[in-house]
């Protein structure tokens, strides 16, 4: 029922050459000094979150899939159909791709009612009036938009607009949904509710979904798998748990909330030196050597005003640069030759008298530092 409804209005496009199911993306494009050269895939019912800092090329990827940009070199297939293959000089225009772009604020047509917005794509594809009407009504109902059907987009809340944008894409016969920063324009209070709601709808629809975001929670909720993009390249991909355990790159570390360093690990066994930017960390890493990653959680960093007694293995003199209050704890950015983020309770903050400029000792146990290639 779900899949049928999703495909209902548009006739099946001719498939010239069978490719794999789902979305397979491989493209290279140079845009005024910025180079995107990336490849990844989204399985037939998979939800992938495309994450990365702003300027990483996330939106460029969406525009390439939708056909709004022309790649220098690309091969993009969707549900077995070639959307773009520069080697074969195939490049379908956006209206022939059946790709469902859902913009940040919905990008709804302001001059049309909710109902006409939802019907737009199906009508543009030449669906029969009665059929289009039935499909539109069905989706208005499923996305709880019936009461809003006569309204104009300006009279809707952010979450409602999102739903209309989604319905519009589905009814147009989209075979993949591309969500561009779906919650960027929502306020914090409604965000959680809308997020849960949208996730439930997506589960129901069962289309492959690619969600672009730079928000850790969004990435987790909308990505069965994450693809991390940075400077136009895929730097890491995998399930959230894998990324969170072993981030490779600044953005993944930020998502996981870890201190991450690229270190030069000395040869040997047992407690070894790992050098990063003039600082030597002492770590335990059997079977590894050379350039590796070293990561530890902010909560593993102990702060004190006096040099700690005993042997925590890593003791660094550090200066507090900024304080960032969280809900129950305070995140402290330190400069110890390398940037370190620590997390302490509010009581500890007061007891230690921490404020920007204060010099402290930061200690981390060797066993708290995870080392991986």
């Amino acid at each position, binding site marked *: 029922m779900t899949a049928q409804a999703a495909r209902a209005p*548009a006739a099946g496009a001719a498939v010239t050459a069978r490719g794999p199911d789902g979305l397979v993306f491989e493209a290279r494009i140079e845009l005024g000094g910025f180079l995107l050269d990336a490849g990844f895939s989204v399985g037939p019912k998979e939800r992938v979150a495309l994450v990365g800092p702003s300027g990483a090329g996330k939106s460029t990827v969406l525009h390439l899939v*939708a*056909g*709004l940009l022309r790649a220098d070199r690309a091969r993009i297939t969707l549900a077995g159909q070639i959307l773009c293959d520069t080697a074969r000089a195939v490049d379908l*225009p*956006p*209206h022939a*791709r*059946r*790709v*469902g*772009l859902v*913009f940040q604020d919905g*990008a709804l*047509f*302001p*001059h049309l009612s909710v109902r006409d917005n939802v019907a*737009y*794509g*199906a009508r*543009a*594809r030449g669906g029969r009036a009665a059929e289009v009407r039935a499909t539109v009504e069905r989706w208005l109902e499923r996305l709880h938009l019936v009461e809003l059907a006569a309204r104009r987009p300006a009279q809707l809340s952010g979450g409602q607009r999102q739903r209309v944008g989604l319905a*519009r*894409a589905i009814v*147009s*016969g989209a075979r993949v949904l591309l969500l561009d920063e779906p919650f960027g324009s929502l306020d914090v209070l409604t965000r959680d509710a809308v997020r849960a709601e949208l996730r439930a709808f997506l589960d129901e629809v069962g289309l492959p979904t690619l969600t672009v975001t730079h928000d850790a929670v969004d990435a987790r909720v909308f990505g069965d798998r994450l693809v991390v993009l940075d400077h136009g390249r895929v730097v890491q991909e995998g399930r959230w748990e894998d990324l969170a355990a072993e981030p490779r790159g600044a953005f993944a570390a930020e998502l996981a909330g870890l201190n991450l360093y690229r270190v030069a690990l000395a040869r040997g066994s047992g407690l070894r030196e790992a050098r990063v930017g003039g600082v030597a960390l002492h770590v335990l890493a059997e079977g590894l050597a050379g350039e590796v990653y070293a990561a530890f959680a902010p909560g593993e960093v102990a702060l004190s005003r006096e040099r700690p007694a005993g042997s925590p293995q890593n003791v660094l003199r550090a200066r507090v640069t900024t304080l960032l209050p969280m809900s129950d704890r305070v995140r402290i950015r330190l400069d110890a030759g390398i940037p370190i983020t620590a997390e302490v309770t509010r009581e500890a903050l007061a007891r230690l008298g921490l404020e920007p400029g204060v010099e402290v000792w930061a200690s981390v146990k060797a066993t708290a530092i995870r080392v991986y290639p």
Partner: protein
Amino acid sequence: MANAPDARHRRREGFGPLWLGSLGLVLLIAIPIASLLFTLSPATWLEQLGSPMARRALGLTLLTTAISTALCVVLGLPVAYLLARFDFRGRDTVATLLDLPLTVPPVVVGLALLLAFGRQGLVGRHLEAWGVQIAFTRVAVVLAQVAIASPFFVKAARAGFEAVDERLESAAWSLGAGRWRAFWTVAVPLALPSLLAGTVLAWGRALSEFGATMMFAGNFPGRTQTLSLAVMSAMESDLGTAVAIASISLALGVVALFGARALARRFGAPGF
């Protein structure tokens, strides 16, 4: 935001001096208009309005400006959209070229039209061979008006299209509408206020056309003599007739401006 609810509560320092400073221009326009309106007694005015010269000039003006305004829209829409949506080499050159009639004296535009479409003209020469003559005909009146008035439409339409969020057209395109359909169902409806305002402004400018028409179409009563040309001709014989015809022009101008403003208010176009 003049009608914002808090307007009554705003502080009004500076209002008086500004009004005083504005008075010069207001009077410069208002006094002549008043003079035009109060020169004739209502009886003579009515009588003059019925004169064949005035009637024919009015009829010709309404006919030619209707056609030229339609042409401004038909010819102006594609280029306005082109300039608004595509970045290409020579875009600024094209835009500047189309703006030229705004700064070049209409007489010069008329002369140039004559040199192009006149009997000996670059294009006119070949048309002549086919038995087609343009200069000094109603067609020339229309062409002169289009040349002079089109920048007003193109500028407004381009600004209108540029103000339409490009993502909306991308969305339409991606939803399965071709470029053509996206243009008519998204770009045009959303730019409509500006398109209408531009149309009315172009019509207003076509109404007031004089110099280019004079050079290219001549001043033949009943054939190429529009209202503004009629005012000038009437001045040579009878001031009363001139004033009566002038007042028709004035009325049409007022209609054009208020029309543009009303449309802008109805649809919320910027800049009025």
